[in-house]
């Protein structure tokens, strides 16, 4: 299993597309955050405001890592290497879990780098201004939620990739469902009835996990997390099932 995982990770990290996308997903938000930190604040207490700003980029980062998840699943089909992969490792379950682990590893590692760099920058900038930085309130939970969000959205992309097998189709679904389609569907349901269906939009619940504050129309953190993870789990099961059965 470890050998298959190493091989999958090597495959993902030796393509330019992955490197470019990871650069965008990790470095761009850090640069924007640091610029905001330098020019957007003039000092003062910098606990929660800093974390809120770091977490504000979480949905975008998660979507980009969702695209990485898609690539982890579809790249081999588009390049034909899936045949070699399955010939080298005929146990499809092992290949599936190695790919899944690779997707989650990249998502969690990238998130850790992003948060790490952002926090280091925060500490340095605030120290220069003579302000002590410390995590307060829900900060730790927000940062933990950042990891949950990116990992689950990456799994969402990975699963859609296995279902579609085609990169463009799966990327479109990964990006359009959370940003447009889900809002439309749940918005229309809410408009057609008196119930606030939007409250149950699964990916939006995922995005709300990284919110420092729980508003009245939000579900609790636990309910949001369950709804979000449960929705993605359905796609994960379908994707895994297709991968196991499908001719290569």
């Amino acid at each position, binding site marked *: 299993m470890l*050998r*298959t995982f*190493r*091989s999958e990770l*090597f*495959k993902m990290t*030796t*393509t*330019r*597309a992955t490197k470019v996308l990871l650069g965008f997903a990790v470095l761009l938000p850090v640069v924007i955050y640091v610029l905001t930190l330098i020019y957007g604040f003039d000092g003062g207490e910098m606990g929660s405001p800093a974390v809120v700003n770091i977490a504000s980029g979480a949905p975008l980062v998660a979507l980009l890592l969702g695209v990485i998840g898609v690539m982890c699943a579809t*790249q081999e089909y588009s*390049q*034909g*290497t899936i*045949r*070699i*992969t*399955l*010939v*080298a*490792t*005929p*146990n499809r379950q092992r290949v599936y879990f190695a790919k899944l682990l690779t997707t989650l590893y990249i998502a969690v590692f990238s998130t850790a780098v992003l948060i790490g760099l952002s926090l280091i920058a925060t500490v340095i900038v605030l120290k220069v201004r003579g302000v002590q930085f410390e995590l307060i309130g829900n900060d730790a939970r927000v940062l933990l939620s950042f990891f949950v969000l990116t990992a689950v959205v990456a799994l969402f992309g990975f699963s859609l990739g296995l279902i579609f097998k085609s990169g463009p189709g799966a990327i479109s679904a990964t990006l359009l469902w959370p940003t447009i389609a889900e809002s439309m569907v749940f918005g229309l349901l809410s408009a057609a009835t008196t119930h606030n269906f939007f409250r149950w939009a699964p990916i939006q619940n995922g995005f709300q996990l990284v919110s420092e504050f729980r508003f009245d129309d939000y579900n609790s953190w636990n309910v949001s997390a369950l709804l979000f993870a449960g929705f993605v789990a359905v796609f994960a099961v379908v994707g895994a099932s297709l991968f196991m*059965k499908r*001719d*290569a």
Partner: protein
Amino acid sequence: MIVVDRLTKTYGAKKAVDDLSFTVSPGRVTGFLGPNGSGKSTTMRCMLGLDAADIGSVTFDGKRYSELDQPLTHVGSLLDAGDAHKGRSARNHLRWIAMTHGFPESRVDEVLHQVGMSEVAKTKVGKFSLGMRQRLGLAVALLGNPQTVILDEPANGLDPEGIRWTREVMRSLADAGRSVLVSSHQLVELSMVADDLIVIGQGKLISAGPISQFMSQHAKTWVRVVSPQFDALAALVIAQGGTVERTNEGGDFHAVTAIQIGEIAAANNIVLYELSPQTGSLEEAFLDATDASVEFRGESAVSHNGRGQ
């Protein structure tokens, strides 16, 4: 040894492989022939577990492919030269495959050297010609130093030197006691290296056995004769039931053997300059054997009224 037993694979309403059984013996190069769409590639994919067979089984020395521990050390395969990421270097392409089995990097360099690609090891696959990608595909097949090798059109896109090299690789593998199954449409090349032939058409077995047996069953044979008294000899041979086809220098006799012609000539004091038994090519024998099962047939380049299309 590969044993294919009653293999059947259906896609929708189409039976791609239909109750196919054959064996591939160690120490021999076995050619795998069939017209386009006859089920060769499907059979190979089923052998390697890439496609699930509806019925039947394929075993390698008694084990199904999925049961093999470290499968690349048992079976090496080249299905499609295009099965490589265009943005990855040749060396990295082999490295990720080697990682699945824990092969050392030195083995990657060895096979790159073996296929003559050491100089371009760091070049991206996207910059390779088809011939170079074929060599890389062969490197993948040889990576695990396997007991059985399955190659689908390995000489496709190779230059004459590359074709000869491929032939030598297959021969040396068989001479070392390995089983080699090779699918190819380059019949002249195949006839130079294959010991056995498996011929299929529309998913069914047409012929299996030594190439000599296939040729004796399907290739035309005749006797070429050159003689200053050709017309006299022809009349005598026709009287014995033979047929004659005139050529510039002499003629070709059908339905009689060289021995019969020699005896007729000797008995009648006829001088012979040439008396040579001839056998048709593997291509002709293949076309004869598969004529009834050709699924996709092109029209002649010249129309019936004689004008070019």
